[in-house]
Structure formats: structure tokens, C-alpha cells
């Protein structure tokens, strides 16, 4: 079984096919051989019977054996010998047996006449009990002979049987015919097998060729060559479909891989900028700026900022990776007006005296993780505050949609153009701002919010118009 499993699919299919072919061809060959043999035997035996029948009838008539007072139990050996002689020819020999099964006459006289096989008691008994057509195969000196038993009756159809004639004929001629026939059959079978197996292997090879191409491509892809694709020659069979869906899968993998790589490169770049500041500041201090307290103070403040930026970046990266598994989202039923009542003080702290309006929407119950929902709102709120001027207000509100609640955070800030808007949800993407104040952002806030919303099976979208303001909408499922 193990060796079988080690074989290639091509070899396995080929072997199965060859075995099936051999089995069916041999079966047909054997059947046809056996059929011909049967035909020959029955032909031969009916021919012999047809020849024997008139001879036996004449013999009975000639010897007046049909008389009812004929002492049939005492079959005269002389008479029997005449009959056996009449029935014996160059290829057939007859012997006569009495009711006890004893041989009373043997037709063999000349040496070229065949030898008669000794009578078989089993078949003899059948003949004596009235069976007319007892025919069986036997052997004389290792050569096959056909044996016929003909019961001797006083009259045809009479139940009185006074003896049995055994006619045996050598089957050498039949064997010769069968041998030549068999040889032809074997040659035919061999031809069919060889051509069939060759054609079969070729067919299997052709249909598996694309599978081999697929395998080669898979190997190359597993070595990291994601640009490879399987070539499909417009095939609609299973292999063609497999190749198509395989290509589609690699397309997606490549896209995912590329975006992962882009993410890592972006993350590394974001890490490198504060690290540049840190390294440079430290080096300048070590080179001598440490001797000047004013320089030390300025550089230290800068380094403190950079370290905080690094920590923020790491926290957000961790936040993103945590959201990759949904098990970290602890959903519960949240009643929206109550949630926003709790949230307002926290939001006002972030607003630092800026005008923040939470416009109460309809009563709604949503299924969400309250901590994550707070984080989403704080992220959006800090963006809104950052990119709008201090005199303008930021509004948070919500409304009911079928099966969902839509929450939005709206500002009257600088807005953004179409180009920025199309990339704004991508990690590390930052639009150009003229009024943003405070510490430099990282560009993860919105993509983090997007991940958090998507972890709730919601959707996020941004509407913005330069000079008018930006509104971020997101949906949550009703709880």
C-alpha cells in the first residue's frame, strides 16, 4: 500500500487502466476460447451419435434382438464384437459393456486405431439408468478423449436397457484447431493490450500535463516568486477550473503580501523618523552640547517628544494587530443615549474647551465593545479637533438605519481634496495640513478606527469638502 501511495498519479492511473484492460481482454479471450471448445465438443459428439445410431439399430434388427423373449441379460460377446467393430473407425473406438458394467467387446483391432479408455463407473451408471446423452472428457495415455455413452435398448424409447456402447474419440484434431485459434487469440489480446496501454498512458499524460504545469508553478511560488501564474489554455474541465481558481488565489495572496510589505515598510519608516531625532540629539549631546545646559534642555525636550511618539506608534500598531483576531472584541448590548451621556465628560476633556456638541439621536441598542467604541470616537474626535480651527464646533450624532445605527463625527475644518480622501483610510497615510497643531500625527488613527469598526461588522466612510469640513460616518449592527 505504501509503495502504491508513493507512485505518481500518472503511474497510478496508468496501472489501474492497464489492469482493467488486461482483466477485460483476458476475460473476453477465455470466454471465447471456452465457447469454441464447447462448440467443437457438441459438434463432434452429435456427429458421432448420428453415425452410431443407424449402425446400432441395424445391429439390433439383424440379430433379432427386438424379440420380447430375447435373453438380454446374456448379451452375446460375438454379437457385441460385431457391433463394436462396426462402430470403430480410424479416430473412434467402441467398446460394449453389459448391464453389470463389464466390457464384453472391444472394437480395437488394428494398432493405428485408438485405445479405448477404461469405463467410468459414475457415467456408466447414468447411462444404464436411462440417460441417452452422457458425454464426458477423459484421458488415454495423457491425451484428451471425448467419451460418449449410448445405452442399448430393445426398441427406441424402451426402458429395457441390456448394455451400453462406449464410443471414444481422440481430441487431437480439435486441440490443433483450438491451439491455432488460441494463438491467434493471444496475439490479438497482446496487440490490444500493448496498443491500449500505450494509448492510455499517452491520454493520461496529456490530461495530466496541465496538472504538472500547475505543480511546477506551485513550486516556484512557494519559493517566493509570487508573479508566476498558471497558463490556462481555455480549458473548461476540472484542471482548467483548478488553474483558474489557483490563479485567483495567488492574485489575492500577492495583493495581501504586497499590502503587508507596504505596511511593514511604512511602519519602519515611521519608526525611523523619531529614531533619527533621538540618535542625532544624543550624538550632538555626547559630542559636547551636554556641556551647555540650554542646549541640553532643548535637545532633551525633543528627545522626550520623540520617545512619546515611538510609544504612541507602538501602541497603535499593537492595537491594529490585536484587532486581527475577533476574540479580543467583547461585544455587549449598548444603549446609545446612555453611552453618550457617559462618554461626554471624557470627550470634553479631549476638546479642552473647544465647542463639542453631542446631538442626541433616537433611542437605539447596538451590539459593540464599549471600550472599542470609545476608542473609535476618541480617534475620530481628536482628528476633527486637530484639523479644524478652534472657533468651529465639532458635532457627534447618530441615526437609525435598517438593522444598523449610523454614528458620525463632523467638523467644519479645512477638509481635504479628492486625492487625499481616496487614501485617507490607508495606514500611515497623512494628508497635508496647514492648520494642524500640536504633536505630529502618525497616520494610523483612521485606519485603526476602520479596523475597529470592521471588527464590529460595520462600515466606515469619510465625506469631505475642502474648506467646508469633514464628516466620518460609521455603522454598528443593532443589538
Amino acid at each position, binding site marked *: 500500500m505504501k509503495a502504491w501511495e508513493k507512485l505518481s498519479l500518472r503511474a497510478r492511473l496508468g496501472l489501474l487502466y492497464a489492469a482493467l484492460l488486461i482483466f477485460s481482454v483476458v476475460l473476453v479471450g477465455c470466454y471465447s476460447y471456452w465457447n469454441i471448445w464447447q462448440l467443437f465438443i457438441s459438434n463432434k459428439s452429435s456427429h458421432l451419435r448420428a453415425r452410431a445410431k443407424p449402425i446400432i439399430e441395424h445391429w439390433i434388427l439383424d440379430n433379432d434382438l427386438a424379440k420380447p423373449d430375447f435373453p438380454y441379460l446374456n448379451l452375446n460377446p460375438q454379437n457385441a464384437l460385431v457391433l463394436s467393430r462396426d462402430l470403430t473407425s480410424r479416430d473412434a473406438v467402441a467398446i460394449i459393456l453389459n448391464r453389470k458394467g463389464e466390457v464384453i467387446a472391444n472394437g480395437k483391432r488394428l494398432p493405428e486405431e485408438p485405445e479405448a479408455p477404461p469405463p467410468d463407473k459414475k457415467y456408466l451408471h447414468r447411462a444404464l439408468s436411462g440417460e441417452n446423452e452422457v458425454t464426458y472428457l477423459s484421458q488415454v495415455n495423457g491425451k484428451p478423449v471425448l467419451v460418449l455413452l449410448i445405452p442399448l435398448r430393445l426398441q427406441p424409447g424402451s426402458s429395457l436397457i441390456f448394455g451400453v456402447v462406449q464410443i471414444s474419440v481422440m481430441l487431437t484434431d480439435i486441440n490443433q484447431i483450438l491451439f491455432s485459434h488460441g494463438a491467434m487469440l493471444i496475439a490479438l489480446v497482446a496487440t490490444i493490450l500493448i496498443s491500449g496501454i500505450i494509448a492510455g498512458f499517452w491520454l493520461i499524460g496529456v490530461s495530466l500535463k496541465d496538472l504538472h504545469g500547475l505543480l511546477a508553478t506551485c513550486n516556484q511560488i512557494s519559493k517566493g516568486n509570487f508573479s508566476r501564474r498558471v497558463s490556462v489554455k481555455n480549458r473548461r474541465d476540472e484542471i482548467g477550473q483548478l488553474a483558474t481558481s489557483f490563479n485567483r488565489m495567488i492574485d489575492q495572496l500577492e495583493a495581501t503580501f504586497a499590502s503587508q510589505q507596504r505596511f511593514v515598510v511604512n511602519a519602519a*519608516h515611521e519608526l*525611523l*523618523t*523619531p*529614531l*533619527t*531625532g*533621538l*540618535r*542625532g*540629539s544624543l*550624538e*550632538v549631546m*555626547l*559630542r*559636547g*552640547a*551636554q*556641556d*551647555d545646559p540650554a*542646549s541640553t534642555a*532643548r*535637545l532633551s525636550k*525633543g*528627545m522626550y*517628544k*520623540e520617545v512619546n511618539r515611538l510609544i504612541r506608534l507602538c501602541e497603535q500598531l499593537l492595537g491594529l494587530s490585536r484587532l486581527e483576531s475577533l476574540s479580543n472584541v467583547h461585544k455587549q448590548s449598548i444603549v446609545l443615549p446612555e453611552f453618550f451621556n457617559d462618554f461626554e465628560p471624557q470627550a470634553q476633556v479631549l476638546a479642552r474647551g473647544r465647542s463639542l456638541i453631542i446631538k442626541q439621536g433616537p433611542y437605539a441598542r447596538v451590539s459593540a465593545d464599549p471600550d472599542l467604541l470609545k476608542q473609535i470616537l476618541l480617534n475620530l474626535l481628536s482628528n476633527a479637533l486637530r484639523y479644524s480651527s478652534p472657533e468651529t464646533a465639532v458635532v457627534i450624532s447618530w441615526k437609525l438605519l435598517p438593522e444598523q445605527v449610523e454614528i458620525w463625527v463632523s467638523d467644519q475644518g479645512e477638509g481635504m481634496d479628492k486625492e487625499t480622501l481616496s487614501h485617507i483610510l490607508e495606514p500611515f497615510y497623512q494628508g*497635508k*495640513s496647514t492648520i494642524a497643531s500640536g504633536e*505630529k500625527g502618525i497616520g494610523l488613527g483612521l485606519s485603526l478606527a476602520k479596523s475597529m469598526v470592521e471588527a464590529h461588522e460595520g462600515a466606515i466612510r469619510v465625506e469631505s469638502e475642502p474648506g467646508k469640513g469633514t464628516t466620518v460616518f460609521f455603522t454598528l449592527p443593532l443589538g
Partner: protein
Amino acid sequence: MILYGKSGIIYAMNTDNNNKIRLLVIEDDPVITEFLCTGLKYEGYDVTPRAAGKTGLDTLQQATFDLIILDVMLPDIDGFEVCRRIRDRGPDVPILMLTVKKEISDRVKGLDSGADDYLTKPFSFDELLARIRALLRRSGKARENKKLQAGSIVLDMESREVSRNGKRIDLTPTEFGLLELFMRHPHRAFTRETLLNRVLGYHYDGGTNIIDVHISHLRNKLGDRPPHLIRTIYAVGYAFYPEETGP
């Protein structure tokens, strides 16, 4: 803390503002700008920082500079574009670009747009100084002498030989480094930590007493008798006061 001697400047390195090498730094990150300004000023350059491409270009129209340090990622105009505009206007000032990206295509793009050299963030400050010196040398703006002279002491940076009154003095590499630093920055008080960092590297973990040992060896070899050329500044460290030559 920079201390000036009572007789003013004697040594060849010009600290006169009019003769200082003028650098324009166009970089939007405040922390990077801060350390660039502090570090480069400490090395004796005159530094003008600008936070955006547009203001940088405006400044270039009003004044001339010996070298421009240009960040690629600027909030308004891309660094490559700034570079191209500077080149379009004509001034043949060397431009050193700072980039975060390591891709070859970026380097090619940087050099194609007219930059003379580039440095990948995060860079070492020593390397930045070396690149600046190399660019200045190439443009003929460097006024760097192969020999430093302070009074009777002559220090040859190429052959690494020191002589006083024409008599050769054999110094160890550390002593040579100390003397070179002192002669480059006369009258400046160095703390022992700074001397340690500059001469033995940032990775040296030992105490600062080792500097006192090296200074004492250096004084002996120079025949430096009180009042010393290399003076001990109480509660700070050491400073170099060259012999007064001339009025």
C-alpha cells in the same frame, strides 16, 4: 558654554560671523532641526533652519549659502522638487539630501534632481559632518588647513605629527586626538565627559579619571608648565589657551 580668551581669537579657524560657513537646513521635523542646528553651530557653522520647501526657496533668494541640507519629505513641496527648482534658478550650491527611503530608485531620483549627495535616516552625526566637509571641499568653500598652528605648537593632521618650536613631540593617538580637539576649539571649556566621548568614542564605559591621566601625559610631553596652555577649569574640565602671538 563657550569661553573666549582675554586676547580674543588667535587660532586660524574663523569664528567671525562674516567668515563662517553658511548652511541652510530645510527640514520639517522640529526635533531633527533642533539637533542639526545645535550640533552644526557647535562645530562652528552658521545655520539657518527652514521648516518648509517654500520658505526655504524664499530664503535662498534673499541670501547665499555655502551648502543646503534638504529633507525629502516636506509638508508643502517634495524635496526632489525643491532641489530641481534650486537647480533651475542656477545657484551652484552643494545640496545634501536627507531621505528615509533606502530604495535605489529614490537615490537615483535624488541625484537626478540635482542633489550632490544623500544621507539615509537615521544617520550618524559624524557621517553628516564628514559628508558636509567633503561637499564643501569639492565646491572649494572649505577653508580647512592640513596644519593647525597655535603659538609655537604645530599639528599636522595628515602626517599626524606634532612639534613645538620645531621640535618633534611623539604623542599617542588619544593624546593627539585631545590636542587636535583643543586646537580646533581654542578657549572652549570641555567637560571630561565630552572629552571622553570625542576622543575615546561613545561606547567607552570607564570613569572620566582616565582623561586626567591623558591630559597630564600630554602636558608633560608638551612641556606645558603653569600657567598651563591646557588649563584646568574648576568644576568644568579643561580648556586650551594658546600662547599669545602678536599684539
